[in-house]
C-alpha cells in the first residue's frame, strides 16, 4: 500500500484529477455535482492549510525547547518567543481572539511591528536608489530619467519649481509604465499556462524534485 501511495503515477493522477475539477466548470457550464466538487476542493485546500500549520508549530516548539533545555546560544530569546506563542494560543483558544490579554499582545507587539516594517521600506528604497542610480550605460540613463521625472512630478515642491515636469511624469507612468505592465502580465500568463502543462504531465522540476527517489529506496 505504501509503495502505491508513494508512486509517481498515483500522485500525478491526483493532480490531474483535481485540476480537471477546477478547470472544467470554469470554462464549460456544467451540471451538478461538478460545481460542488469544485467548491469542496477549494474548502479542502483551506482545511489542509489549517492543519499544516500544526506541524510547523510542533517543529518550532521542539526546536526552541531543545535550545532552551540545552542552554544553546541565545536561549532566552527562544524562551520568550515560544512563551509568547503558547500564551497567545492558550488565551485565544480558551477565551477567543477578542479577550483583553489577546488584544493587548496584538496591540503592543504585532500591529506596531507590521506598521514599522512597512515604514522601514522607505529607508531601504532610499539606500538602494542612492547605490544603484549610477550612469553607467544607456539602460541606467533611462532608468534614472524615468525615476527623476516621476519623483519631481509627485513632490509638491518639485512640481512647483519645474511646472513642465508634471505632464511628462504622468505620461511616463500612464504609458511607458502601463505598456510594461501589460507585457509583464502577458509574459507571466504564458509562463503560468505552460507551467500548468508541465505540471500535469509530471515534468515540472518541483514535482520531479518532490517525487523522485533513489533506486535502492
Amino acid at each position, binding site marked *: 500500500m505504501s509503495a502505491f501511495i508513494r508512486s509517481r503515477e498515483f500522485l500525478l493522477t491526483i493532480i490531474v484529477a483535481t485540476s480537471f475539477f477546477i478547470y472544467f466548470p470554469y470554462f464549460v457550464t456544467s451540471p451538478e455535482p461538478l460545481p460542488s466538487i469544485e467548491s469542496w476542493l477549494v474548502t479542502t485546500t483551506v482545511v489542509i492549510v489549517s492543519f499544516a500549520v500544526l506541524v510547523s508549530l510542533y517543529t518550532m516548539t521542539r526546536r526552541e525547547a531543545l535550545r532552551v533545555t540545552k542552554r544553546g546560544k541565545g536561549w532566552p530569546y527562544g524562551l520568550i518567543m515560544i512563551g509568547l506563542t503558547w500564551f497567545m494560543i492558550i488565551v485565544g483558544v480558551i477565551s477567543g481572539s477578542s479577550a483583553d490579554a489577546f488584544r493587548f499582545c496584538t496591540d503592543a507587539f504585532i500591529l506596531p511591528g507590521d506598521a514599522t516594517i512597512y515604514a522601514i521600506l*522607505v*529607508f531601504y528604497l532610499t539606500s538602494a536608489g*542612492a547605490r544603484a542610480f549610477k550612469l553607467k550605460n544607456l539602460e541606467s540613463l533611462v532608468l534614472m530619467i524615468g525615476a527623476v521625472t516621476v519623483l519631481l512630478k509627485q*513632490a*509638491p515642491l518639485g512640481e*512647483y519649481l519645474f511646472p513642465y515636469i508634471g505632464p511628462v511624469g*504622468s505620461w511616463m507612468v500612464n504609458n511607458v509604465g502601463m505598456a510594461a505592465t501589460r507585457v509583464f502580465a502577458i509574459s507571466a500568463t504564458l509562463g503560468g499556462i505552460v507551467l500548468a502543462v508541465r505540471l500535469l504531465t509530471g515534468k515540472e522540476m518541483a514535482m520531479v524534485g518532490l517525487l523522485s527517489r533513489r533506486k535502492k529506496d
Partner: protein
Amino acid sequence: MSSIFKICATIDRRVWYALIFLLVGYGLLRPVGFPLIVGPEVKQAYAVIESLKPGDVVLINYDISAFGWDEIKGSALSMVPHIFSKEGVKVILFTDQDQGYIYLETTLKQIGSPMKGYDKFPWYEVQGKKYLEDYINIGFIPGFDKAIAALASDFRGVVGRTDWYGNNIEAWLDANGIKSASDINMIVTLDCAGAQGSWVNYWYLPYKTRIVNAMIGVSAPASINSYNVGMLEGIVVSVRGAAEYQYLSKYYGTALISMDAFSMLQFMLIIAMIIGNVGYYFWERKQEKVS
C-alpha cells in the same frame, strides 16, 4: 579635491537613514507650507462630489485592508466628511474587504460623534447626518468582484433586510426609493485592492453610475487608465491626491501636513542620486581604471 569625491562615493548609508528621520520629524512637527498645485484629476473629483444634489444616493465602498490604511486614510478622512456635509444626500456605506468595517468605524469615530443617548456603533452622527435617517452601513459582503456584480444585478436581494449591526433597513431603503442598482447616483470607492475595475464593469457600463475613486499608489496605473477613458469621474491618487483633496475641501488633516516632509524626502533622494553619481564619476571610476 579628490577627497571630497571620495566622501561622495563612499558616503555611509546610515547618514541617509538619520537624515530621513530628521526630515520627517521636522516636517511633521514644524510644517513649512510649501506651495501645493492641485491637479486636474482631484479638482474634477472635488467638483463631482460638490455637485451632489439633495435626494442623491451615494454608495461609499471601503476596499481597505490593514496594509493600505496609513496611505488611504488621508482620502477617507476628507472625502467621506465632504460627502456627509452635502445637504439631503443619503449615504450607504459598504466594504468588500473582511477587515474593511474596522476602518469604516475608525473613520466615523474620527469625523463624527455618538448620537444622543447612544454610546456605540452604528449610532453616530456625522455632519448632522444621523444613522438610519440619512445613512446606513450594510457592512461586509464577501466575494470581492462577485459581491460587486451581485449588488449590481440584485441590490435589495444581496443587501437583505438588515444592516451590518442587525437593524432592519427595509423601511429606510423604501423611503429613499432604492429598489435596484440604478437608483444609486454615485459610487465613491476607496481602493487598496483595485476594486474600481469591478465597479466600472458592473455599474458604470450597464447603468452609467458616476464613480469617484481614491486609491493607493500601487493600484494607481489601472485607475488612471479608467479615468483617461472617461469611466471614472475623478481620481485621488495616494497621499499626494489626499493632500490636494484636503486642501480643496478644507478638511485639513495629516496628509496635507505630511506634504512638506514628502517634498523634502523626494528631493533628498534626488540629491542622494546626484552625490552618488558625482562620487562615481570623479572617484570610483578612477579607482576602477587604476586597478
